[in-house]
Every structure is written in C-alpha cells, then in structure tokens.
C-alpha cells in the first residue's frame, strides 16, 4: 500500500463513436499525482487534453463515450463508480477551471450567486452564510471590494477578474484536486502572469493536487513539478520538469522545443519546426503515431511504421514512448538537437 497515489490514472481510454468512425481521444493514458504537487499536461490541439480532464470529473459518463481503465482518487475508483457518486465528488473533492471564463459562467446569474450555488450544493447552510463565504473567497482571489462585486454579472467583469472569480468558484469547497484547462489562454500576458501567481499561491495554501493543461510550454514550466506530453491521445513522454526541459528524450518533445522562439535565449537564426500536421484520431497512423512527422523514424529500421512503441522508463521515473534506445536518444539530444536550440548562445 506504500505506493498508493492520491490520484492514480491507469490505462484510461475514452473513445467516441461518431459517424466517421471511432474517435480515440484518449487511448491508454496513465499518470499519478500527490497532494500539493502540480502536473502539467501539454500537447497540441486535439491531443486529448480536455477529454482527459473532463473524464476525471466523470463528465463523459452517461453520454456516448466508451470509457475504460481506472481512475483512483484518494483510494476510490471512479470509472466504475456510480454517476451519482461521482457527481457528489464534483466541486467538492475535485474541481475545474475552464479556458474561457466568459462563456463558462452563466450570463444570467451574478458572479456571487454562482459561487454561492457551488458552495451550497455541498454544504447545508443558509444563503447568508454561503454569501459570507463567497465574499471571503472573492477577496482571497484578489477581487477588490468583494461585497460590491458580489452582485456583478460576468459581463461586467474584465477577463482577468472573471478568471479570478472562476478560481474562487472552483476553490470554494476546498477541493483536493484542481484541474485547470488552459486557464490563461484567453488572457493577456500581464494578466496571465497574475493568474499564474495566484494559482501557485492558492495551491500552496490549499495543499491541493493541481493539474494544469495547456499547449504553452512556458506556462507548464512555471508551475509544474511533473510534466506529461501527449500526442494523439497517448502519453509520449512523462517526467519531472527537469526531465522534460533539460534532458528530453522523445523526438516530438524535441520538436516542440525547437518550434518555440524563446525570450530567455539569444534568438536562433531559424526555428526548427516539426513537419506535417497532427494526426487524425480516427485513422491513427500505424506503429508510432508520430512516425509520419518524425525525422528519426528511419533510424528505427521500419519499427516506427509497424509497431506501437511502449511507454518505457528511461531513468528514475522518466518515461518515454519511442523505439530508439535510451543511448541513441541521449546521443541525438546531446549532439544533434541541443546544440541547434542554443545555436548562437
């Protein structure tokens, strides 16, 4: 029982039957997380990030989705649990922050009322008590004059304030697990920085487990202890922040790093993009899903095209899904990739 994690996702699969075929949005995903720690999930559009997070909250339950695998939260399994039980955990034990705070809040109810509602679902208290609690929460997330702003409607808030209010709503029941799906993508940089600071502070205060989902490697690096890189519904690399940023071993991760212009380095002459575009989730490429875009595929002697690589431990919990051997990968990183990323350093 010593290796029991607070959140433990095992071989999660979420497939959607559609007219065009079966969409394998999440296809055998495993990861784990402890209280007080942050996991960053990165990946391109359509790689299955949002479907994963909604899956943990059980929001695909009862729909058309085919779900299998296990999600253990604090010793309880959620995939097989009843919908009603999972519902009772939502908002209380696990909460979520969404990308677009304007469309994610109901336009007809005041911000305060929406927070009160979130509190009273799980606490049998009077409206007055809940109101006081909500105002405290608004204050906590840095909304000035919270008593007055309590009665404002979402459209009367600025983008940054709305996201603060969303955070207040998510944290009002002191959840143990907080999932933030692209929490700052819709915001300006200066406001994004405020929100990231706020999330970091609150996470420390609440000692919650935090999953932050984004396509921005910068944002993950700011907050995460561990990072999961997704491609075509699968994890292709999983490790600590240092594993991913200092000794990445997967060709796709290399590609992401090479694609990004960076402010903390001298500008490189050219960016090093990944060729092609993300895979279809219906007709997933054979073998390694990344092989049509991978520059190193020829070095696997055809295996990349025919065999699906396993997610294998490289060293100390750093997992990589690639047919290249560990030594090959490390050699490529040190001699072919890293020098190019820092070309003019």
């Amino acid at each position, binding site marked *: 029982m010593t290796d029991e994690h607070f959140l433990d996702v095992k071989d999660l699969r979420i497939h959607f039957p559609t007219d065009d075929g079966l969409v394998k949005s999440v296809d055998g995903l495993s990861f784990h997380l402890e209280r007080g720690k942050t996991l960053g999930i990165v990946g391109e559009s359509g790689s299955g990030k949002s479907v994963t997070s909604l899956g943990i909250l059980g929001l695909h339950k009862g729909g058309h989705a085919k779900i299998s695998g296990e999600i253990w939260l604090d010793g309880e399994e959620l995939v097989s649990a009843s919908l009603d039980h999972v519902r009772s955990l939502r908002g209380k034990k696990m909460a979520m922050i969404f990308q677009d705070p304007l469309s994610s809040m109901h336009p007809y109810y005041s911000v305060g009322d929406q927070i009160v509602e979130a509190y009273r679902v799980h606490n049998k208290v009077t409206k007055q008590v809940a109101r006081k609690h909500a105002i405290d929460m608004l204050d906590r997330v840095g909304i000035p004059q919270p008593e007055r702003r309590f009665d404002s409607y979402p459209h009367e808030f600025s983008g*940054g304030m709305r996201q603060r209010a969303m955070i207040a709503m998510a944290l009002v029941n002191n959840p143990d697990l907080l999932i933030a799906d692209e929490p700052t993508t819709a915001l300006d940089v*200066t406001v994004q*920085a405020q929100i990231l600071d706020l999330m970091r502070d609150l996470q420390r205060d609440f000692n919650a487990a935090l999953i932050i989902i984004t396509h921005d490697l*910068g944002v993950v*690096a700011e907050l995460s202890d561990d990072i999961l890189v997704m491609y075509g519904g699968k994890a292709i690399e999983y490790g600590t922040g240092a594993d991913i940023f200092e000794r990445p071993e997967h060709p796709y991760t290399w590609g992401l790093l090479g694609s990004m*212009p960076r*402010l903390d380095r001298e500008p490189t002459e050219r960016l090093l*993009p990944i060729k092609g*575009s993300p895979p279809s989730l219906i007709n997933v490429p054979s073998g390694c899903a990344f092989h049509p875009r991978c520059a190193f595929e020829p070095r696997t002697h055809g295996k990349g095209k025919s065999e699906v690589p396993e997610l294998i431990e490289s060293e100390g919990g750093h997992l990589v899904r690639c047919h290249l051997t560990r030594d090959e990968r490390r050699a490529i990183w040190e001699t072919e990739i890293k020098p190019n990323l820092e070309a003019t350093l």
Partner: protein
Amino acid sequence: MSEALLSVDGLQKHFPVTKGLLKRQVGAVKAVDGISFEVRKGETLGVVGESGCGKTTTGRLITRLIEPTGGKIVFEGRDISHMSQGKLRPLRRDVQMIFQDPYSSLNPRHTVGAIVGAPFRIQGVQTEHGVKRAVQDILALVGLNPEHYNRYPHEFSGGQRQRIGIARTLALKPKLIVADEPVSALDVSIQAQVVNLLEDLQNELDLTYVVIAHDLSVVRHISDRVAVMYLGKIVELADQKDLYKSPMHPYTNALLSAVPIPDVKGRQGRERIRLQGDVPSPLNPPPACRFHTRCWKAQEICKQVEPPLVELATGHEVACHFPENAPAKGDAPAEAGATA
C-alpha cells in the same frame, strides 16, 4: 539606413460610440490615438501589445481598409490617408494583409486555385503562362503541392490554410505585407513552419512586413524593429535587440517579465514585475500617461503631462517621464533634450 516605404504621422482612428434610437454620439473609442512610425524597405516591423490596444486597427489603417480620423499615411511618397477607393486600386496590389483566422478568411466554396488566382482576375493582370501556372508556382513557393489547385479549403489543416492565405497575398508581388496575428491560431509546431515560411519569402521576394502579434517571443524572432502599443499609443519603438535587451518603458519591462519561460532551472530566481489590474477601457483612457494607473514608477507628473515619444538612444524611442535603462545624459542623441 534604407529609405522609408511607409510612413505614418500622428495617425488616429476614433470609433464613435452611439446610444439610443437616434444614434446620438456619446463618446469615441480612441482605438488608435496619434501614432507615428515608419516602415523601411525590406525590414520587418513588429507591433506588440495587449488585447484592444489598437494593433489590428493600425493594420487596417495602413492597408487603408478603413479611413483614418486624423493624421497622415504616406506610401512610397504618396499621401494615401484619404484617397478614394477608386484611386486606391493600384495600391491594393502593393499592400496586402494576412489575417489571423485561416478558417474564416477563406471562402469555403472556392477552390484553392480560385482563391489564390482571384487577385490576378480582380486586378486584370496578364501572366506569361496563364493564371493557373502562376498560381501553381505560388503554391509551390509557400510549400503547398501545386496539385492542390482544385481542392477546397476544408480539405486542409490549419497550417496549410494559413499557407493558402499567404499564397493569396503573394500573387501580385506586393511591396508591403501586413500580417495580423498570422500564427496565433496555430499549434506551436505549425507556428514555427509559418514563421519560417514568412522569413524565407521575405528573403526570396524582397518583401517588407508589418507583423502584428501579441506573442512577444514570436515578434522578437521575426522583427528587425518593434513597436510596443498601449491603449492606442506607441509607448516604445526600437531595434529588436535594444528593445528586448534594454527595454526602457516600464510597460515593456512588465510585458517581458510576464512571459512564462519554458525552463525549470531559473524559475525561482527570476525577478518579476507584476502589474496590477487589467488594461483600462479605451473608451475612457487615463489622462496624460495612459499607463499611470498600473505603473509602479508613476509620479504626480505622469498624471498631468503626457510624455512624448522621444529618441533616448539611437533609434530607440520611448514615451515615459522616468524610463528604465536610460542612457546617461551624454549618450543620448540631441533630440532627447526636448523631454520634460
């Protein structure tokens, strides 16, 4: 220093705000409020700033998709500020715009060939081997397969659609391309492809770019010079290297410091500037220095006197009473004396 292809002086665009049945004007959104800059032949000028600061409006003004409220736009020595649509026709060949959304800016019912070939037909341009051949050449140039001539936009991915958009602007060999957020709707890996493409095309075709974006890293990568906008004003304008190495305007400093860095090593040690609050409404911007409500260096004078945009170091213009990283008095060029 090469000559100016486009120069803009005191450019303004105010959108009236009306109310009620009678459309009484109750105010104006000062989307662009007196900006001056020039774009030199062969260079890339980057324009950055937060949402609503007037970047897109600036782009639409200099391509004359909209008419300015005040100020002057001079393209190749001709004042085009208030030119009629008819007279603008030849200009439309020389100045092209690339839009942010590669989905909605292409007509879904037209083939790629029709889309990219449209400028030839509209402008009545004769081509040596026919329009089809010319279009296929351009498709090859932007990295699309010339055989895609008869396909429709929905058959392409986001990155490919943006390539189609770029191909369309290239058809008539424009002199100036204004790209409004050309990569922000694209995935990281695709962004890099498009950025590289823009750079390659610039070298091959001797293009001049104005690139509008909110992503500071992309702008640094692609630009020679960069203008930083805040609430309809340019607050700093400098060579890319100077601006990113020694930003002088407090807002530029804050912007740069807010960008999350994809590196876990230095994250605790980095010094950060955190601005309070959001950008104020351009309907009712703060008086004098518009940044004073969020500026940590603000003093009384900032609320009363608007700081002019002046050159504090060679080619480095700043609008601030108390700039950061300002050179010692002696180093500054002569005009800087005019401050205060």
